[in-house]
C-alpha cells in the first residue's frame, strides 16, 4: 500500500473502531478524558508504525493493546496517578500477564452502550451532550463538529473539555441506567441524536457539506443504538422517523434551492430504500408493544405520508389521530398547530380553524410565522379571503427568510386557487 492508502486505511479504521476503543478503555480507567487520551496515543502510534509495518491483521486489537500499554506506562511514570488508580494498575498488569487474547479485547456492546449513556448524561448541558456524542461516538474531530455547527473550533474544544470534567466531578458511573433512570436517560440520548439529525436537516445548499453530513451521523448513531438496545420501542421509533425524513432529502429542495413543501414534493424522488427501512423500524417498534412514545408517534405520522402514493391519497384521519396522541404525550404549541392542520385536512377547514383559534393568544407562537400562515390558509378554504390576506401579510412580516416571504405575499393572489395548504409538519 502507498503512504496515502495507509493514511486512508488508518482514518477508516479509526472511524470504525474509535467508539468501541474509547468505550473499552473507559471501562478500565473509569475516566472518559483519560480513555480518549489513551485512544489518541494509540492512533498516533498507528500513524507512526503502520505506514512502514503495514496495517495489522486485526487493527482494532492492535489499537486496544497499544492503548493499554500506554496506560501502564503512564501509571508507572506518574506515581500520583498510580496511587489514585492503584486498583487499575494491578488490573492492567494482570491483564498484561494473561497474554494477547485478553489484552486485546476491544469494548463490548455493553461498554459502547454505557459510553452512549455517559455522553448524553443529564448533568451535561445539551450543547455539551451533542459535542461529546459526536466526538466520542460519531468519530468526528473537534474541527468537524465546529464546522457543522457553525461555531469556532475553540468553542467546541472547550465544551468537550468542560463536559469531561463535569462527568468526572459528578462521578457519573460508567453503567447502563435501570428503571426510571433508564427512561429519563434514554430520552436524553434520543434527544441528542434527533437534535444532530435536525441540525443536518436544516442545512441549506450553500452550507458546508459537514452540516448535511450530520443527518448521516445521526442515522448511523441511531442504527447502532437500535442494535444495542433492541427492546426499546422509542429507539426504533426515532430510527424510523429519521429514515423516513431522510428519504425526502432530495425532494424537499427545488431546482433553485427553494424549499418544497411536503405535499408539493415529487414523490418519485423519495428514496424507497430509506422508506422501506423506516417502515420496518416502525413495525419493530410497534411489535414491542406498550403505549406509543413521541418518536413512535412522529414516525407513524411520517409513515402515513410515506405510504401515500400521491398527496391526495394521504390518510389524514390517521394522521389527525396520531397528532391527538402526540399532543397528550408531548404537549406543545407547535404540536397543537400541526394537529390543527391535520384536523383541517381530515375533517374540513372549520374543524382546523377551531383548533388554530385556540392558539392565537399562545405566547410561544407570538412571533411564529406559521401560525398566521396556517390560519390564512384555512380562511381561504372557508372563502374568507379578506381575513386571509391579513394573516398572510402578518406571516410575511414575521419571517426573515426572503424566499418564504415572497411565497407568503403571493398567497393572497393565489387565494382563489384550490391547492394544498402550507403544512408546517415535515
Amino acid at each position, binding site marked *: 500500500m502507498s503512504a496515502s492508502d495507509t493514511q*486512508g*486505511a488508518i*482514518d*477508516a*479504521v479509526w*472511524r*470504525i473502531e474509535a467508539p468501541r476503543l474509547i468505550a473499552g478503555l473507559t471501562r478500565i480507567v473509569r475516566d472518559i478524558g483519560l480513555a480518549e487520551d489513551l485512544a489518541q496515543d494509540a492512533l498516533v502510534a498507528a500513524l507512526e508504525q503502520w505506514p512502514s509495518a503495514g496495517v495489522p*491483521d486485526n487493527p482494532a486489537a492492535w489499537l486496544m493493546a497499544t492503548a493499554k500499554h500506554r496506560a501502564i506506562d503512564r501509571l508507572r511514570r506518574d506515581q500520583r496517578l498510580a496511587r489514585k488508580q492503584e486498583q487499575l494498575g494491578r488490573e492492567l498488569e494482570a491483564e498484561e500477564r494473561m497474554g494477547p487474547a485478553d489484552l486485546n479485547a476491544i469494548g463490548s*456492546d455493553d461498554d459502547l452502550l454505557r459510553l452512549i449513556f455517559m455522553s448524553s448524561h443529564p448533568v451535561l448541558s445539551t450543547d455539551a451532550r451533542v459535542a461529546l456524542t459526536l466526538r466520542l461516538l460519531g*468519530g468526528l474531530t473537534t474541527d468537524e463538529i465546529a464546522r457543522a455547527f457553525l461555531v469556532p473550533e475553540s468553542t467546541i474544544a472547550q465544551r468537550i473539555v468542560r463536559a469531561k470534567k463535569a462527568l468526572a466531578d459528578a462521578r457519573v458511573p460508567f453503567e447502563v441506567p435501570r428503571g426510571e433512570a433508564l427512561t429519563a436517560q434514554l430520552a436524553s440520548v434520543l434527544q441528542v441524536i434527533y437534535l444532530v439529525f435536525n441540525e443536518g436537516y436544516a442545512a441549506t445548499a450553500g452550507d458546508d457539506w459537514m452540516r448535511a*453530513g450530520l443527518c*448521516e*451521523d445521526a*442515522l*448511523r*448513531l*441511531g*442504527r*447502532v443504538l437500535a*442494535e*444495542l438496545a433492541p427492546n426499546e420501542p422509542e429507539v426504533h421509533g426515532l430510527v424510523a422517523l429519521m429514515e423516513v425524513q431522510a*428519504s425526502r432529502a*432530495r425532494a424537499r429542495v427545488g431546482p433553485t434551492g427553494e424549499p418544497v413543501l411536503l405535499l408539493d414534493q415529487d414523490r418519485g424522488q423519495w*428514496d*424507497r*430504500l*430509506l422508506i422501506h*427501512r423506516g417502515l420496518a423500524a416502525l413495525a419493530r417498534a410497534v411489535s414491542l408493544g406498550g403505549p406509543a412514545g413521541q418518536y413512535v408517534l412522529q414516525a407513524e405520522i411520517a409513515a402515513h405520508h410515506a405510504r401515500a402514493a400521491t398527496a391526495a391519497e394521504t390518510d389524514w384521519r390517521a394522521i389527525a389521530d396520531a397528532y391527538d396522541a402526540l399532543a397528550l404525550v408531548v404537549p406543545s404549541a407547535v404540536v397543537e398547530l400541526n394537529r390543527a392542520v391535520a384536523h383541517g385536512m381530515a375533517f374540513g377547514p372549520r374543524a382546523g380553524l377551531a383548533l388554530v383559534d385556540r392558539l392565537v393568544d399562545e405566547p410561544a407562537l407570538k412571533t411564529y410565522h406559521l401560525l398566521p400562515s396556517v390560519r390564512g390558509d384555512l380562511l381561504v378554504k372557508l372563502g374568507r379571503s379578506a381575513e386571509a390576506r391579513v394573516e398572510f401579510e402578518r406571516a410575511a412580516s414575521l419571517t426573515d427568510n426572503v424566499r418564504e416571504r415572497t411565497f407568503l405575499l403571493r398567497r393572497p393572489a393565489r387565494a382563489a386557487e384550490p391547492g394544498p395548504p402550507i403544512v408546517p409538519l415535515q
Partner: protein
Amino acid sequence: MRFLMYSLDPAVPAPPDPQMLAELGTLTEDTKRAGVLLATGGLGMGSTRVRNAAGKLSVTDGPFTETKELTGGFALIEAKSKDEAIEWARRFRKIVGDGESIVQEVFGG
C-alpha cells in the same frame, strides 16, 4: 455516502467452507452493529444476459465461463468516506480469499 460492494470472480466459485461462512456472518453482524449496512443479498448461480446490438435484443443464459461474473452477493453500505468503504471491503476480502471485490459509490436512491 453510499457504496455498492460486489465481487468479480471466475464463474464457477469453490464452495465456501463452514468456517468462512461463520466469519462472513460475523462480518455482516459487524456492519450492522456499526450502523453502515443498508441492504445485502446473495446472488443466485448463473446470470442471464439481455443484450441490445443495433436494436436487436437477445437473451442468453449463463454461466459465462470466458468472463468474470458477479458472484456471491452484494452489500449496499452507508459509510463516512470512500476509505471507510474500502476498509470494509478489505475485511470482506480477507475472509473470502483470492479474487476481486469492487467498491463503487452510489448516487441517488
